[in-house]
């Protein structure tokens, strides 16, 4: 009987934790860890909403300054699946801010994809957050001449981004 009570309590607690987990799926890294940066005067903040991304498709071709049509198509394909892009940048104390930001990101939530450490002391960190096997957020953290934090939210396909990267750098 006591065992039944214990199991019942565990079940109730598990059920309570499910909505919290579900709620946390929709929170981006900046809302999660860096809200104080948004109000900080040192940071520049930009946000492109999903609504704006949808409007990009209706822009004139001339607005998209890319070398080839393939690049433009790849760029729009990625944009189509984006629900939001948040950008934080700061010119002061880039290395310190990078270290602080990196320490705040929970590795149980974000999986490191790539870490680049350059000889000049600049660092780049790419992380992804997955839900049910799909990448829901791509986070890029950089600390060199400037500190930057990019958060892409949406259904992201790394292959598309990689292809675009290859085409753009040809």
């Amino acid at each position: 009987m006591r065992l039944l009570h214990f199991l019942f309590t565990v079940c109730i607690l598990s059920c309570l934790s499910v909505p919290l987990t579900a709620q946390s799926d929709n929170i981006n890294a900046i809302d999660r860890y860096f809200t104080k940066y948004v109000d900080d005067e040192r940071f520049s903040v930009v946000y492109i909403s999903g609504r704006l991304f949808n409007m990009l498709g209706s822009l004139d071709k001339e607005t998209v300054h890319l070398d080839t049509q393939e690049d433009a198509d790849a760029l729009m394909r990625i944009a189509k699946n984006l629900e939001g892009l948040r950008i934080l940048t700061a010119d002061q104390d880039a290395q310190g801010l990078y270290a602080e930001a990196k320490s705040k990101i929970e590795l149980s939530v974000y999986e490191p994809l790539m870490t680049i450490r350059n000889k000049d002391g600049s660092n780049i960190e790419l992380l992804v957050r997955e839900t049910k096997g799909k990448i829901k957020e791509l986070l890029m953290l950089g600390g060199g001449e400037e500190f930057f934090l990019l958060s892409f939210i949406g259904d992201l396909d790394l292959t598309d981004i990689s292809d675009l990267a290859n085409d753009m750098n040809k």
Partner: protein
Amino acid sequence: MVFDHQHIQNLLDNYFEGQTSIADEQQLQQFFQQKNIPEPFQPYAGWFQFVTTEQAQSIGPDFLPQLRQQIAVEEKPRAATKVLRLPPVIQRIAAITIGIGLITWLWSSEVQQPPTAKAIDWSQYEPDTPAEAMAIYQRTMMKVSVHLNQGVTKASGKLQKIEDLGAYFK
């Protein structure tokens, strides 16, 4: 001793009707102890001789232990119902361990949840026009692609070095 057959017959009738006194029964027992029992009374002889023999026996000191032993042998074994009764110390330790485990689990669940985010009004950071959004998006994707390629190139270079070293040692 001479017995009146009619008197014995009357006593027998009373005996089987349950009307005899102890003295009457003793007379009947005495009658049936004689060697030559008249033929009409012979069917009753065995019974009264048995009663006389049984009354002569007394209960010995080993009667009660023998009886208990016999009861113990004849008593069917009860269905095995085993109740696990742990010592109170073990019960307390188990309760404390479960309590600590539950608290640790709840605490770790709480830690994994994101900190309560202050609601940010992101709309104030949106670009004014889709063209401006496109320009920002394009620059951001350029930055991502540059660093992504940088990481891939570095990783490829390292792999090539490892392969070269492997070939050297073959």
